[in-house]
């Protein structure tokens, strides 16, 4: 039986994403963020990509659900779970070969959720100074937490300025709940 270590090494060796792919999916995430901004929502775009398939995408749903945990990443992870259920696929097996592309650094909660789901790679735009869980407030991507899933690799800073600009534009508009 493969140990946790060798399983991880094997996954890392066999699992990589080219720069071209990163660019392509991040530009999709930015389109989503722009659409959100135009409809007056938090401009964060996020995609979960497995192979060449988008298995989850989300936008912030905090206000309509009155549930402050409904960040874009959490919504996208729920879609991934539904996708696995429909295809009768093993969730862990799918997640271990899935990449999250998101325009803003995931918050502490979402970063922990990504660990719990065993997502190995997160590509993001700008950092999230207020809540960021991939180095800004805490670093959950590398923290030693044996009961909280697996660590993940981050590729930060993709079109960061653009992502910041969108957030600034949004926060200049009125936002009653300060999320």
């Amino acid at each position, binding site marked *: 039986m493969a140990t946790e270590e060798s399983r991880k090494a094997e996954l890392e060796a066999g699992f990589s994403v080219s720069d071209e792919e990163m660019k392509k999916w991040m530009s999709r995430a930015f389109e989503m963020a722009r659409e959100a901004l135009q409809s007056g929502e938090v401009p964060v775009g996020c995609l979960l990509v497995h192979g060449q398939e988008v298995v989850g995408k989300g936008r912030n*749903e905090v206000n*309509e*659900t*009155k*549930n*402050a*945990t*409904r960040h874009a990443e*959490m919504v996208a*992870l*729920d879609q991934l*779970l539904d996708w696995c259920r429909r295809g009768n696929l093993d*969730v862990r097996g799918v997640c271990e070969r899935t990449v999250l592309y998101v325009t803003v650094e995931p*918050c*502490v*909660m979402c970063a*922990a*959720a990504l660990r*719990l*789901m065993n997502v190995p790679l997160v590509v993001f735009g700008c950092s999230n*100074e*207020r*809540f960021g*869980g991939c180095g800004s*407030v*805490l670093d*959950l991507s590398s*923290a030693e*937490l*044996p*009961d*909280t899933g697996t660590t993940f690799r981050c590729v930060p800073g993709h079109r960061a300025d653009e992502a910041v600009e969108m957030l600034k534009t949004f926060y200049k508009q009125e936002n009653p*709940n*300060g*999320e």
Partner: protein
Amino acid sequence: MEPETKRWKGSKCDDDSWVAFPVLSDEQSADVELVEAFAAPIVNRKATSRLVRELNGVYPLTGLQHVKRVRACRAEDSPHPLEVLLCLLSDVPNPADASIPSLLPAGSWEGLGEPFVVKVPARPPLTRPQFELASRRWPTTFHEDKQVTVALRGELFGPQQRALMHTFMASAVAAARAAAQLGMEAVGAAVVDPETQRVVTVGHDRRGEHPLQHAVMVCIDLVARSQGGGCYRHDRYAACRFAPTDPQPEGGAVPYICSGYDLYVTREPCVMCAMALVHSRIGRVFYGAAAADGALGTRFKIHTQKDLNHRFQVYRGVLKRQCEDLSSRGRKTPEPPLLG
């Protein structure tokens, strides 16, 4: 010693043996940090106020306002009654030479005896235990937060309050047992409105169905349900329930997510759940058993994190034994010391 049989039955006295201790910030629970300073005996008592004034001019001891400049001598047989702080070791270029001419500029320093090195508290004490430790080193001022002092003694909650807390945690324990019967992790939680002492929701772990549906996440969604929102179905689980929000009186505030509410949870929340509670603006959290990766005291203290926009009080140990029994198959974490 109680008879064996009585304890086996779990007497009422045994049930009530828990203590709720506050989980304070690292600054509040840290050991007393010390810094080395030079002090000298005051051999001529009449010169005290002049010496203090002049020393304050030369070495104002910036950042050490909590440290008293002069202390009475502790040894009863001491030839001099008072000792005064001169400066920090870091204030002088050559700390190896502890003579008055080396430490102080030319002036009238008669009245001072031979300097010696002492350790003084580097920071103002934040809690009574820190104050007591600090004062053993050198007299220190202390702006006491009485509530913290009482809480650290485990005496913040009176008998009536404890009885209510007991009931709330007992419903979380019952939910945890229901979860275990369904093959989920034995973790349960209850959200309470402390204003009315009303249970808003009870929920339990459901990660067999969804890896992120920890008891706290379930409860947060149940609270959203009670306010007309929510995004998951809960009706398949008899032990996950909520009371719909009462119609608000004219002009009354509609509850906003979890603000002002208390959470009772059998096991210390993980970092995802702890941060979810920050986002949800929870009022206070009470947990029973600590967890190895727990984020409200054991591995992180998310509730005291300075950069975050919401902080809250956390108490551990409510119905500790019952809560620890729930996860007794898992690892038990050592009791965190009060001061560390």
